[in-house]
């Protein structure tokens, strides 16, 4: 019961976020009060909640791809079979750190085209980096003697991976996933410019048409989503750490 305590607040925050996003009339009222005399209060092409789903869709799909690819590549490169590629991959991840996220996105979109699908792919591409980097460092951080004991117990390599390496590397990997997702939320905001929808649309609309209320709507939704997701990840990380501590003391 106590491990859920870490998730309670973030989940509540997420629920609150969705509820607030759904309350379109409230938005109209509040924005109308902040910007008296302004007639263009809300983004015309989608309700706040619809924007949330659009953005979430972008983020979740691309993040799922990033995590899958990053995890797979990270695991591969730390196996004997993939050892040859380790150097190249390590160099690329180091290089990629200097790459402005925006650049990956903007370089990918022309290559992949415009619209939702290519944008998702472009987002997934940049999101791979933090997951890959942390998967590698997390797996490498597993103490050698623990690996040896696992082999001595008779575990086959894939068993060792699933039951020893990944669980131990989980906190580090999770931190990488967290970074990936949060950066994804930010880059997806810009994704609007490639026609993919999401929060970027109202923000840019408001900036271009000098309609501050619309910009604020998009900005608040975006900031809110990023912070809520970050809080959820924080809760997950603490739950994992808590469970490990509990398991350790139980030994």
């Amino acid at each position, binding site marked *: 019961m106590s491990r859920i305590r870490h998730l309670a607040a973030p989940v509540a925050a997420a629920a609150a976020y969705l509820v607030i996003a759904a309350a379109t009339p409230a938005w109209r009222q509040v924005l109308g009060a*902040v*910007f008296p005399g302004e007639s263009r209060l809300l983004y015309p092409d989608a309700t706040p909640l619809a924007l949330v789903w659009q953005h979430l869709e972008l983020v979740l799909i691309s993040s799922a791809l990033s995590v899958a690819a990053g995890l797979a590549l990270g695991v591969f490169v730390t196996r004997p079979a993939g050892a040859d590629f380790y150097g190249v991959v390590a160099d690329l991840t180091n*290089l990629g750190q*200097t*790459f*402005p*996220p*925006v*650049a990956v996105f*903007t*370089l990918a*979109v*022309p290559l992949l085209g*415009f619209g939702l699908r290519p944008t998702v792919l472009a987002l997934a591409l940049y999101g791979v980096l933090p997951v890959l980097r942390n998967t590698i460092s997390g797996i490498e951080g597993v103490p050698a003697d623990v690996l040896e004991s696992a082999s001595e117990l008779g575990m086959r390599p894939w068993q060792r991976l699933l039951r020893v390496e990944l669980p131990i590397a989980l906190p580090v990997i999770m931190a990488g996933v967290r970074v990936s997702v*949060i950066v994804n*939320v*930010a*880059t997806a*905001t*810009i994704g609007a*410019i*490639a026609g993919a929808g999401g*929060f*970027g649309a109202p*923000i*840019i609309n*408001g*900036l271009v048409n000098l309609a*501050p*209320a619309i*910009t*604020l709507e*998009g*900005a*608040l939704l*975006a*900031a809110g989503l*990023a*912070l809520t997701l*970050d809080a959820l990840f924080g809760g997950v990380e603490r739950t994992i750490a808590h469970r490990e501590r509990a398991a350790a003391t139980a030994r």
Partner: protein
Amino acid sequence: MFRVANVFQTIPGLAMVGLLFAPLSWLGTNVPLLGRLGVGGLGWAPVITALTLYALLAVVRNTYAGLASVPDSVVEAGLGMGMTEGQVMRSVRLPLALPVIFGGIRISAVQTLGNATLGAFVAAGTLGLFVFGGLSQQAMDLVLLGSITLVALALGLDAALRTAQRLVTPRHARRTEAVR
């Protein structure tokens, strides 16, 4: 303090700029001095503000880490020998922390370079104009031009600052260089 800087870091760049749009417009219109300086919802003001807030976290975190990395025994020796707190900070902690602090400055600088593209959204030009403008007009050549230049600048800045960082690292620390 970390919490606050962390929150800022989590907010998407475009959203940050969007959040600043209304307040800065208000300031620009209602505070004549600021208006004359060019403060407003568009232009350099939101970009600079947002960039500063983002740069803050990396620099603060690395500065703290750098100062904390100075071994306790060294600080204690300094105090025990009769240095004042100020002397310890100036002659011992800062010089020893400098490589890490500089690393934070480097990371922050490169990050800021990338973030500066946001300027395009608030009529502040920058490479973002090529990149995002190109995207919205579906002009591949503009996008590529902007993106490649951006990447080249980022890599160049990183390399230049790494060299500077090496110069700033006192000889004793160069052996164990774990430059991040």
